[in-house]
């Protein structure tokens, strides 16, 4: 049995995986619920409920000027992860230390990538 939370997550996975905006029907076709009666797609109304919840939570944005409405992920998974990490790291009294330790564990290749990204940041 899939609960609403699992379904929200599956919808986000689909939106994150898709480059284009999607309609509720397109999303429904990409989702499968595993239940007692085998695999089936959720009802379109269920998908719309889930999308409304996700929109309220700030995960999804909706284009309203076309029918049917089209949906896309507001931020990428990485951006949301960064939001979560920021909230937690902002509380750290020793934020620099957390980053320093992270860089200490980075491989030579990762360090080179970091240096390149920092240079790009500095130039912009």
């Amino acid at each position, binding site marked *: 049995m899939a609960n609403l*939370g699992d379904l*929200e*997550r599956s919808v*986000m996975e689909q939106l994150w995986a898709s480059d284009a905006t999607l309609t509720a029907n397109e999303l429904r076709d990409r989702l499968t619920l595993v239940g007692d009666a085998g695999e089936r797609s959720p009802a379109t109304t269920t998908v719309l409920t889930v999308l409304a919840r996700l929109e309220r*939570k700030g*995960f999804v944005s909706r284009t309203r000027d076309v029918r049917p409405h089209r949906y896309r992920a507001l931020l990428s*998974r990485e951006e*949301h*992860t960064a*939001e*979560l*990490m920021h*909230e*937690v*790291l*902002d*509380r*750290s*009294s*020793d*934020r620099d*230390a*957390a*980053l320093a*330790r*992270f860089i200490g*564990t*980075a491989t030579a290749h990762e360090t080179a990538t970091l240096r390149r990204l920092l240079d790009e940041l500095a130039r912009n």
Partner: protein
Amino acid sequence: MGAVAALLGALAVALAWPIPVALARAAWPARAPGLALALWQAIALGGALSMIGCLVVIGTTPDGSIVDAAASLLPHLLTGPLPAEFGVIDVAALTLAAGLAVHLLLNVAATAARAERERRRQHQLIQMLTNPLPGEPGTRVLAHPVPLAYCVPGLRTATVLTEGLVAALSRDELRAVVAHERTHLDQLHHLVLLSFRAWHSALPWFPIANRAERAVTVLTEMLADDGARRATGPAVLVGALTLLGSSAEPGAYADTGGIAPDSEMLTARLDRLETPGPELGAFARSAIVMAAVLIVAIPLAAMLAIVG
């Protein structure tokens, strides 16, 4: 009346300055963090009660009791004029008492509400972004390379570890970190800290508020360390703490504000894990409990004595 007001005033001053300063400097809390935490709670509660109580006793002097003073003041509060026996000092004391009580309660409510709102957002993100850690119920892993562990308290709880943390630690060290976070959750440390955080934000100019919150934060970390030590033994926990430092667990409570554990606190925690002091004796323990009870009971009794 004068004697009661003087007693409460003296208690309020003692609880606002010399007692917290002495307790923050004392060495024994590291040996009995649970008791020290209880004593800190008593100091905060007793301090607020005696401060407000002292003002109430002064303000109700003309009628000699809280009930009589309320009966003669309340009917005139909005319509005025106030009864002649209440002078400027009485009215000022009562206004200050009411203002202080409301200010403190509102700050607790606002701090709790903000924390709850931030935790709800945390749960939304955690549910969307993390995967369960096999074998550890209630523990989720976030795909991020910076090593970090924290927990989200409340009705719904979660412990979150980053992939960077999981990769950096051995299996036993990971167990120690999870046990540490779970102790924060099981012992409801966020509620213990809430009153001090609110106190700090209600009285930011109060020199002791910061020191008290800091001391209480260290004590909750020590209690969580004790939980981890029971699960894995001290050596594993010391290994994990040394490897991660203080920044990997920036306070466990998933909301902004408050004091996060820092490297100075980590030194104190490592010291007591590596060379634990002797258990506190039975006499000292009962003396601390008695002190905590008295600190709250004295202002309560003094106010009850002038109720009717």
